[in-house]
């Protein structure tokens, strides 16, 4: 098992390395002179020359890649061309704000999804099951901004004007100092992700409930409560962990749209601004960051999968 986890770890590092390569190669796509593309047609030759020096554009490609990678590894993410400040500094506070959003949404949607999924799996074919399954099918289809706009109309501007529709924290004040402004962004993300987890949990649980060992447990005369907690649930956790991981990665994408919609001062909005400003180094840093988060989350899910599988677990003990 340790070898299996180590193998998985090595693969993750390899994938992460390939991701850095891809993120770097993307900058080579910049048409013409990257410095001109970044600064625009009106840029003075002096500024272009300065940017050349700053980006090290005169060096060969592989050297630029190694320099950039070395910087990333040591925490130097480069300089933002738009704000002229270090990228790391620009992102510091925003990472915390985005993490608050992500963690809240992840915890709430995972708990709700698992509970609803299990509950409906136990009521297969009944009215409650049809209602929840139908609702999750509809909500799962909606893009993030559609859910967000609908919530704004419903809870902020038009129907029930209860909550702020934009984040209004003054610079320097952490977003969580005014919890009410977190409600709509978090709720939007929860509604985006929870339906998938619910559906997956229901499907996995249904499959487990139809399995031979659950039928056998019932035929042994084990009370239903124990059949579910001891014989069914443990087998559903492993496969669902993978799905949750994929959904959390989805959150990392959805967070961009949601932050933009609610003007939330997080990484996602920084990414949109950077794309609009052609602030290449910031775009690189943020995409790399999000990819790294995804790789780590996926790695954790795989480890959960390995740990919950007795076949793999007992191989070490022998």
């Amino acid at each position, binding site marked *: 098992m340790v070898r299996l986890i180590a193998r998985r770890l090595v693969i993750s590092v390899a994938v992460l390395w390939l991701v850095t390569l891809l993120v770097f190669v993307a900058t080579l796509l910049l048409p013409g002179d990257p410095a001109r593309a970044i600064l625009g047609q009106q840029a003075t030759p002096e500024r272009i020359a300065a940017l050349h020096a700053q980006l090290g554009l005169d060096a060969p490609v592989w050297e630029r890649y190694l320099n950039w990678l070395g910087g990333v590894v040591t925490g130097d993410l480069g300089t933002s061309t738009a704000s002229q400040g270090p990228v790391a500094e620009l992102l510091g506070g925003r990472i915390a704000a985005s993490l608050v959003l992500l963690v809240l949404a992840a915890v709430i949607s995972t708990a709700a999804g698992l509970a609803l999924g299990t509950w409906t799996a136990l009521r297969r074919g009944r009215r409650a099951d049809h209602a929840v399954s139908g609702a999750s099918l509809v909500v799962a289809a909606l893009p993030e901004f559609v859910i967000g706009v609908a919530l704004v109309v419903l809870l902020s501007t038009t129907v029930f004007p209860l909550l702020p529709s934009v984040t209004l924290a003054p610079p320097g004040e952490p977003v969580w100092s005014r919890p009410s402004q977190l409600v709509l962004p978090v709720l939007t993300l929860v509604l985006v992700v929870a339906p998938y987890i619910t559906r997956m949990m229901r499907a996995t649980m249904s499959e487990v409930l139809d*399995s031979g060992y659950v*039928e056998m447990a019932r035929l042994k*005369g084990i009370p239903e409560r124990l059949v579910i907690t001891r014989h069914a649930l443990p087998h559903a956790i492993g496969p669902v962990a993978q799905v949750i991981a994929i959904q959390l990665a989805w959150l990392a994408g959805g967070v961009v749209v949601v932050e933009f919609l609610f003007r939330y001062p997080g990484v996602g909005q920084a990414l949109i601004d950077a794309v609009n400003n052609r602030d290449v180094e910031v775009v690189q840093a943020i995409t790399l960051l999000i990819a790294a988060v995804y790789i780590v989350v996926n790695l954790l899910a795989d480890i959960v999968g390995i740990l*919950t599988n007795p076949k793999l677990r007992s191989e070490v003990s022998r």
Partner: protein
Amino acid sequence: MTTQVAVRHALVVADLRVETVTGTPVLRGVSYEIAPGEVLALVGESGSGKTTAGLAALGHFRRGLVPAGGTVTACPRDGDPVPMLELDERQRRSLRGTTVAYIPQDPALSLNPALRVGRQIAEVLEAHGYGASGAERAARVAEVLTEVGLPGDEAYQRRYPHELSGGQQQRVGIAMAFACRPSVVVLDEPTTGLDVTTQTLVLRTVAQLTAEHGVAALYITHDLAVVASIADRVAVMLGGEIVEAGTAEEVLRRPQHTYTRELIDAVPDLDGGGEQARRAPEGSATPALAVRELSVAFGGSPVLRHVGLTVGEGECLLLLGESGSGKTTLSRCVAGLNDRYTGTVALDGRPLAASTRRRTAEELRAVQYVFQSPYSSLNPRRTIAQSVEVPLEMLTDLDRAQRRERVAATLERVRLDPALAGRLPDQLSGGERQRAAIARALVTTPRVLLCDEVTSALDVSVQATIIDLLCELREELGTAMLFVTHNIALARHIADRIAVLQGGEIVESGPVDEVLTDPAHPYTRELLANTPRM
């Protein structure tokens, strides 16, 4: 107070009717009863409703099935008879495991893979409040494991199901069923998928436990040879009804119903067959197929070791081997489907390339393969005629009209209704599909036909017709055959010679009669001793 009946039955099922939720009848009034210490075999083929009838004894109906009348009465060891179907789910569950216990068909699927086996047995005891203390229950777990012939010690109890062999898993299943000393056990094909030697062990354990503890056993099976060795009484099911019942002696020796007679005739018997004129091995001529020094290893561990065999012109060699013996690997090497071997495979004295991709069209036409399961060997998206035509398309220069003609002739040869030619495989029965698969193999008029367990996915009565067909085809066409099987009882029905494969080595070979009457190798003797006879 209990009534003074001469024999108090442990289980009485009367006029039981079960249907699907949409109203299609599955059981049409099934009645049977079992006395303590008695084994009733419920015999039937797939779809006969035998498992439904067995599960009903526990008051359990699978999803989509509902009871539609009749009664199930179980009698606990110390207490009054209980009308099972009148109880609610909670009450039924308190009887399951204590009064009526169940032993499933496939232990690999029925044991919880994440729980240690000792835990799974102890759990039944806890659920039913067996014993006064944890220590007493722990003692019972150890005791019941010993009773089924497994080590009862702590280390063994701490194993997970996947750390046990199939036979051991099944015995854990039996221990679980007998743990609370039930008065009735329902065994649902408990030896399907086990080797004959393990099957004998399991059967012996069941017979011993039921006799010793006075347990009434309902033994569900499709295998009449097994019935002969374990049952006191037999009930034969067909289409949701019991068509014949009586003592094992009566039903097996003097069957009344035509279906029972058909079933009995269909069972291959070690001593049966023999009407084929067996050919003497021809020493002089070049064998049609010769395998020499063939070895295969998967990831360092050897699967086949220096295997050599020959199949003469028009001869049938039965290659006998249990699961894991390497018999399928061997036939795939011959077919060119597995090219990672050393040694040679020769056709008419000329060595063949290892992979089908490097064999000539003529060589490919000459060696054909019939697969184990007709459910997966035909492309579900192609009609039967299209599937049979593919080999001609790939390996011959015949034009479309000629191919069609050849396909029609071959389908006729395997006695397949021409009306089925335009159907898709899933509109055919298992036997019809296997005929189609045989037609596909014969359409190129091969010199050598490889048959890999071609009967084992089929019902008993269908197996017999496929064996008959293969015998007739051999007479008509003179095709040499390598018939791969785990069932030694088929030998006299089809083969001229036998080769016994154990652990990747041929341990014995010779003419059928010689090997069966005077086996030289202890493994062959063991197989023969453990093969149930009618």
